[in-house]
C-alpha cells in the first residue's frame, strides 16, 4: 500500500477529511507532526520516504513552518503538494498580486509602502476608504478598512509598535465596491471543483469564515471558471482557493490560498474535496 504523508501541526476538520479520503482510496496516511520533526538537509530520499511517505500533502497551519519543511523535502526529491514555489507565492499577498498581474488576471489596484510617510502618500493616491493588509497572514488578521488619514496614522503607529519586520511592509489596496460577499473558487490541478459565496457576518466587512463568514452555494459561470483557472496557473497550480470579488464591472481576484481550509465550501457542495485533493496528489507524484 502506498504511504501518503500528511504534514500537519494541528488536526482540523480538513486534515481528518484528508485522512479519511486517503484510506478510502486505499492509501496509508502517514501523519507527521511538524512540531516534532527535525530533518537532515542531506537526508537521502529513501530515508525521507520512510519517514514522510512517498508523497506529502503539506497542511501546516503555520505558513513559515510549512514553507521551510517543503523546501527541504522537495529539494531531496520528494513530491510535496503544494510545491515550494506555489507556497511561497500564495503565502505572500504581494507576491500573489504580482504573479496575477503578470498573467493578466484582474486584481484590485495595489500599492506597496514601507514607512508611515510612504503609506500615507500611497493611501492619498488610492483614495479613502482603502484597505491595509499585512503581506503575510490569514483569517483577516490585521486587515483594516482605512476610512481616513487619522485612522491610517493610528494603524501605522500600532504596527510599528509590533516590532515585526513583516508588519513594516504595507500592502495597500483600493476598496472595491462589492456586494457583502466574496467568492471562493476551489481549483485542483486543471479542474475547478466548486465555488461558494462567503457572506460577511453582521457588523463586519471581512468575509473570512474564520471571522464568522457564512458559505452559500455559488454557480460556477464560465467567466468565474476562466478567471479562477488563470489565477491558479499564474501562481504555479496545485490545490488552491481563489478568492474573488464582484466589482461593478468585472470579477477581481484578491487572494489565492495555498493551504486551503475547505470546510465552509464543503458544506455547500456535494463534491468530496478531500478525495479530489488526494487523487490529485497521487497523480502529481506519479509524474
Amino acid at each position, binding site marked *: 500500500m502506498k504511504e501518503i504523508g500528511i504534514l500537519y501541526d*494541528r488536526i482540523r476538520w480538513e486534515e481528518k477529511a484528508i485522512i479519511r479520503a486517503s484510506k478510502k482510496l486505499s492509501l496509508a496516511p502517514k501523519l507527521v507532526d511538524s512540531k516534532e520533526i527535525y530533518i537532515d538537509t542531506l537526508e537521502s530520499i529513501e530515508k525521507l520516504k520512510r519517514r514522510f511517505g512517498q508523497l506529502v500533502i503539506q497542511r501546516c497551519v503555520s505558513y513559515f513552518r510549512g514553507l521551510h519543511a517543503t523546501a527541504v523535502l522537495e529539494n531531496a526529491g520528494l513530491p510535496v503538494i503544494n510545491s515550494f514555489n506555489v507556497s511561497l507565492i500564495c503565502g505572500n499577498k504581494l507576491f500573489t498580486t504580482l504573479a496575477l498581474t503578470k498573467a493578466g488576471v484582474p486584481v484590485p489596484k495595489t500599492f506597496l509602502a514601507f514607512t508611515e510617510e510612504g503609506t500615507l502618500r500611497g493611501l492619498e493616491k488610492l483614495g479613502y476608504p482603502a484597505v491595509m493588509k499585512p503581506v503575510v497572514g490569514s483569517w483577516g*488578521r490585521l486587515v483594516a478598512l482605512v476610512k481616513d488619514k487619522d485612522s491610517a496614522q493610528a494603524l501605522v503607529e500600532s504596527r510599528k509598535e509590533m516590532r515585526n519586520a513583516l*508588519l513594516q511592509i504595507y500592502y495597500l489596496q483600493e476598496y472595491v465596491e462589492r456586494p457583502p460577499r466574496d467568492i471562493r473558487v476551489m481549483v485542483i490541478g486543471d479542474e475547478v471543483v466548486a465555488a461558494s459565496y462567503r457572506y460577511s457576518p453582521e457588523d463586519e466587512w471581512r468575509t473570512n469564515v474564520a471571522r464568522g463568514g457564512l458559505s452559500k452555494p455559488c454557480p460556477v459561470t464560465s467567466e468565474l471558471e476562466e478567471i479562477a483557472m488563470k489565477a491558479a496557473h499564474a501562481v504555479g497550480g496545485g490545490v488552491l482557493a481563489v478568492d474573488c470579488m464582484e466589482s461593478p464591472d468585472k470579477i477581481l481576484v484578491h487572494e489565492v490560498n495555498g*493551504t486551503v481550509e475547505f470546510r465552509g465550501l464543503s458544506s455547500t457542495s456535494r463534491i468530496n474535496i478531500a478525495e479530489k485533493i488526494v487523487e490529485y496528489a497521487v497523480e502529481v507524484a506519479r509524474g
Partner: protein
Amino acid sequence: MNQKCPECYAELEIPDDVISGEIVSCPDCGMDYEVRMKEGEEIELIPAEIEGEDWGE
C-alpha cells in the same frame, strides 16, 4: 475516555475517535490542549500553541 483538565481539574471530554494532534478545549477554564497519543491507549494533554502571526490558509 474523559480526562481532568491539567489547569483547573474540570472534567474534559475526549472524543472516542480522537487523533493525535487534535485540539480539545476545557469547558470550564477555556484552556486549549493538543491531544498526544502515547503507547497503548494513554493520552497526554499538552497546552496548545498560541495562534501565530503566520497562521492560516
